[in-house]
């Protein structure tokens, strides 16, 4: 036991939040001395588990180590939790297996001795992995039931608890509205809009703000690409379009013209969608056709290199090239365009980025009542869904 774990419990006791910890700290201090000999061994067990990985490798050793850790007392919890703060989910689960046993055993005691101060600090530490933090906060819900609400409003930009925090301020906004306090409601809904990653929360905040006369831009907030050069339709009988390569896949020349479906001359044309969530209806923007292929091309300016997520959907399917590299292709037909259906990692470079999307349109569904949709929706964001930093380098389209 490291002394830091003991001293972290002390401020909490002073605050009187968990009086039973008085006894706990005495015990923990004692344990920190008596188990010092074992400390290296605990660290060794933790280190063995850290090696568990792909293909079941390290499982036998991890199993042995986890079982030995399971037999330890609550005093190893801080070290176990620090170890759990790893992107290696296989190792994390081995640690968790031991954690759950230790916590369960401790909770069954008449006077459990959880290191509450450490747990609270751990739960608040946004630099740690989200999953063990949420697990710890769930434990704290039982130990100190008011703690969650006391910290949530400070976690609006927290990668793990953002959704919970935004949910809280949205509820506070609704309450304020119900009480007639529009200014307070506005503050809450604006905070929700600023921090929300969840689309339902975002659109909820937008709707509420609009209702009280505040307009905000959800397109920029979510990182949709809305300004495109569109080209099509190319002829693609049946479902041949996905595998067939058309000229834009070799190079994009905005001024070029091509022979399209039924021999018609087709050219790139500038288009900007006005859809609330950036969906592009190709039936309107290109042509109401079946068995065809269309292309969308955009240029995006970025102030710096960014590792981002591409999130997109299309009806029927799509392939995406960023700066000449194919970064996503999904063959499935009759998809329906759904927000964020597909994701892929992407690198937006500093300066101008070239984005090309191929959208296939298949045959009419055998049920003629099924609409023959052809559409695209695409955005760039961070892993939590917050817009990447870019702006369109294309000219504005004429309305």
């Amino acid at each position, binding site marked *: 036991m490291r002394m830091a774990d003991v001293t972290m419990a002390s401020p909490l006791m002073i605050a009187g939040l968990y009086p039973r910890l008085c006894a706990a700290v005495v015990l923990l201090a004692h344990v920190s001395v008596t188990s010092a000999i074992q400390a290296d061994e605990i660290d060794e067990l933790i280190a063995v588990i850290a090696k*568990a990985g*792909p*293909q*079941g*490798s390290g*499982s036998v050793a991890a*199993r042995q180590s*986890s*079982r030995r850790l399971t037999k330890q007392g609550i005093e190893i919890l801080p070290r176990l939790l620090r170890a759990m703060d790893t992107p290696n*989910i*296989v190792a*994390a*689960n*081995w640690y*968790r*297996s031991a954690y*759950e046993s230790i916590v369960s055993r401790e909770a069954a005691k008449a006077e459990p001795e959880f290191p509450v101060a450490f747990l609270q600090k751990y739960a608040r530490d946004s630099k740690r992995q989200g*999953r063990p933090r*949420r*697990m710890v906060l769930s434990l704290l819900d039982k130990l100190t039931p008011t703690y969650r609400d006391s910290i949530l409003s400070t976690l609006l930009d927290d990668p793990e608890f953002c*959704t*919970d925090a935004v949910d809280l301020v949205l509820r506070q906004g609704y309450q304020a509205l119900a009480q007639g306090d529009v200014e307070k409601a506005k503050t809450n809904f604006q905070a929700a809009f600023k921090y929300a990653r969840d689309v339902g929360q975002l659109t909820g905040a937008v709707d509420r703000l609009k209702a009280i006369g505040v307009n905000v831009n959800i397109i920029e907030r979510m990182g949709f690409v809305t300004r495109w050069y569109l080209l099509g339709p190319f002829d693609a009988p049946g479902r041949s379009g996905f595998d067939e390569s058309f000229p834009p896949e070799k190079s994009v020349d905005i001024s070029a013209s091509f022979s399209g479906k039924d021999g018609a001359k087709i050219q790139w044309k500038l288009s900007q969608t006005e859809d609330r969530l950036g969906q592009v209806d190709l039936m309107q923007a290109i042509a109401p056709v079946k068995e065809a292929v269309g292309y969308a091309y955009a240029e995006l300016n970025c102030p710096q290199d960014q590792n981002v997520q591409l999130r997109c959907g299309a009806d029927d399917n799509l392939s995406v090239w960023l700066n000449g590299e194919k970064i996503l292709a*999904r*063959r*499935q*037909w*009759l998809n329906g365009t*759904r927000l964020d*259906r*597909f*994701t892929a990692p992407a690198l937006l470079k500093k300066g101008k980025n070239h984005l090309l999307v191929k959208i296939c349109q298949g045959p009419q569904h*055998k*049920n003629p009542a099924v609409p023959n949709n052809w559409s695209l929706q695409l955005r760039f964001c961070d892993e939590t869904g917050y817009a990447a930093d870019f702006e369109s380098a294309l000219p504005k389209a004429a309305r």
Partner: protein
Amino acid sequence: MKTVCNFIVLTSAILCAAAHAENWAGWRGPNRNAVSPEKSIPTTWSENEGVCWRSRLPGTGISSPVIWGDRVFLTSSDGPKQDNLHIICLSRRDGRELWHQRLWGTSPTRYHATKSSMASPTPVTDGKHVFAFFGTGDLFCFDVDGHLIWHRSLASEYGRFENRFAATSSPLLCRDMVIVQCDHYGDSYAVAVDQNTGADRWRIERPDAWLSWSSPQIVPVGDTGKHELLLCGSLKIDGIDPQTGSKLWTVGGMQQECIPTPVFGHGLIYAVSGPGGKSLAIRAGGRGDVSDTHVVWENSRGVPFVPSAILVGDLYYLVDDNGIATCLDAHDGQRVWQKRLPGRYTVSPIGTHQHIYFFNEDGETIVIRANHTKFEQVSRNRINEAVFASPAISQGNLFIRTTKELLCIGPD
């Protein structure tokens, strides 16, 4: 020689399974055909009558309960992203929780608001170990006392899962392997994992496969002593060598997205996918594209999207999602009867050689007499909770998982 040895091992496994026929070891029970050899299974119950015990369950899940001996195994998931996973063991006698493991999933996906979660695949057990697969792309092995043996994060190793209703395919035990079918928007594959070590025995890419939810099935090939693995999805059903993963044959005619698991009997594979698709009866043992040579019959009546079909004796039963129940002659595919049942259906029917149980989403069960050429309803039972998980039969009891609880129906 190796083939002979394998045959002996497999035959032993089958005989072993027969000796424990009172168990319901995985998805759709014995031989994954959903038909229990037991006879005295209750046919009447209600919310308050005939319920031996009920046990509250954490989180959500549509995976079936699995029963081996005096233990019931279940999975569920919860949390804002549904990536908090539960593997639970209850006492078969009284529903008491014997152990409960909580673990994290790697890559949660989208899921249906009411009809799925990350705990849609049914676990499977051989009585020594429990293998649990989740929609997060994680495969776990526990011993039956709840100790974690190994964990495979398939989503970390082979790419995150992309799914709109969450993966549902249930793992299959075959010899000393556990086989998982991972058909999704991303790069689809099937993988056979060593039960003892968790390492891959084989893994095959499925470049032509996209999103499907069907579970793998294993069937004998005539009297050859050989078996074939079936993978259904993306407009076809593939016959695979379970030892190597090599593709043996293909039959077209399935829908783009397939959910039902094929069943086997009379030397035939019965595969179905809808809506708007058809039932196919296929002879195993082909090579290459055998769509024109090995399909014995096909019928497009009453084809479901979600529920799997059931074969009892000479009759093949289907219920579609809207409650149209259809009975076909298993030998020629001719319609025997068709009847509208109340409610909507997600649950796959289960049965004995005497009765077939159709569970609707509202918690109603229509019990009909099996193996009769006329529709004959035996009972209509109601519990007051929604049911989306396919129930199990074991040791004289029915185990029904509702959205909140597991109910044990029948004698104490």
